[in-house]
């Protein structure tokens, strides 16, 4: 288990958000697992594999990956190269964190925007999955929203830490 940041350093409301993400993510992951199990068992016991299991797996995978981003941001667990940063003086750290957080948030915001535009494009020609013909665009919008949310948190969490630092906590 990763060592979580102490609750006190987190923005308020983080706890409720985390619970919501955890429940939704848990359901998606269990569905991902259940699908393979159903597909394999169905194939052998009833000679009837789950129709569209491959594409449902793909959709669920994307949902989990993007839903996880706000969770990563909330815990400030983006992986960094710490060869140099660990040797920086303590007073610099919150500033550096806020600056890199802002940089990442800008990148993520651009990603969110482009995934949204791409989803609209797919929606424009009625893009669907192969077998079950599930529209893909709504998933794209969901991923874009998650990314946007992740961008916001990626900027806010280190900014919050900086403010607390300035207030002398």
């Amino acid at each position, binding site marked *: 288990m990763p060592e979580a940041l102490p609750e006190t350093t987190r923005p308020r409301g983080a706890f409720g958000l985390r619970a919501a993400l955890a429940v939704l993510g848990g359901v998606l992951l269990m569905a991902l697992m259940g699908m393979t199990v159903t597909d394999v068992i169905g*194939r052998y016991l009833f000679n009837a*594999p789950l129709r569209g299991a*491959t594409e449902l797996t793909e959709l669920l995978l994307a949902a989990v990956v993007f839903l996880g981003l706000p969770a990563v941001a909330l815990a400030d667990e983006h992986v960094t190269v710490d060869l140099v940063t660990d040797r920086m003086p303590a007073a610099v750290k919150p500033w550096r964190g806020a600056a890199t957080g802002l940089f990442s948030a800008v990148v993520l915001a651009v990603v969110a925007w482009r995934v949204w535009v791409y989803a609209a494009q797919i929606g424009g020609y009625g*893009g669907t999955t*192969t077998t079950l013909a599930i529209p893909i665009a709504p998933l794209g919008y969901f991923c874009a929203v998650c990314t946007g949310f992740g961008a916001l948190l990626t900027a806010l969490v280190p900014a919050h830490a900086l403010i607390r630092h300035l207030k002398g906590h």
Partner: protein
Amino acid sequence: NWLPPSHPLVSELIVPMTEQIAEATGGEVTANILPAPLGPPQAHFDFAVNGVADITFGVQGYNPGRFKTTNIVELPFLGDSAENISVAYWRVFDEMLRDAGEYDDVKVLAVFSHGPGEIFLKSGEVSEPDVLQGVKLRVGGGIVHEVASALGAVPVEGPSSKAYELLSQGVADGILFPYESVNFFKLIPQLDEAISVPGGLYNTSFYIVMNKAKWESLDPEQQDAIDTVTGEALARMAGQMWDAADAAGKAAMEGEIAITPATEAQLSAWEGALTPLVQAKLDEAAETGVDAEAAFDMLKAEIAKEAAE
């Protein structure tokens, strides 16, 4: 470019095409082939739309829901020669299917078809009419999935790259594929029997398209020059390329896979089973506003005309 450089589609079609374009325009228009793909196969049509790349190629079926007119060429029993089908397909496209507007965001250099899909099995009584009943067949999706279901087989889904895994693990008992693909994905050691279906069980439609803004930036002479080496000429070259690749695939199967022609009984059973699917696919194509029945008739007539030559 999402295929390895050694794939015949790249080495024997895309590379010669860029050379011919350069030659036809007197070296004014040249294309560079990127060493690695920019994204997964399904993204390539949009790469041309958005100008990420100037020219891209791919399979319409990778974007389900986007191209409905491709249904017409993917139907069973159309013919044994990819060249004939591709040339006929281009003519039908040029005359009728273009109006569906599916390709309005790009300049189409060619649409063409892969060689026909056949049946490959690990084992089985290949002459029995119910040889496919309950057999697990690996399918890619789209019409192949529906063909397999209609023939009474159990479709096992998976990308082409997983076909080897599915067969070698025994998860699938067989596969619907063209000769070329069985060879390309190294499936020959996994398979012992093949049933060749006259006219094929399905076809796969491909496109080669160019970014529209790029096309419009060329002067009319350059455009005319490119038109002379693309369109029907390019579709023909593509079909010939697939026919050669299928022949090579078939040759590689010599002594490894026993190829048995489908029996009369099998054919009549399968034709009956697939008739509703053909109708459903034509109806779907008609949703785009083109006269699908007429297009299908024209396609068959053009294939017959080509075959007669």
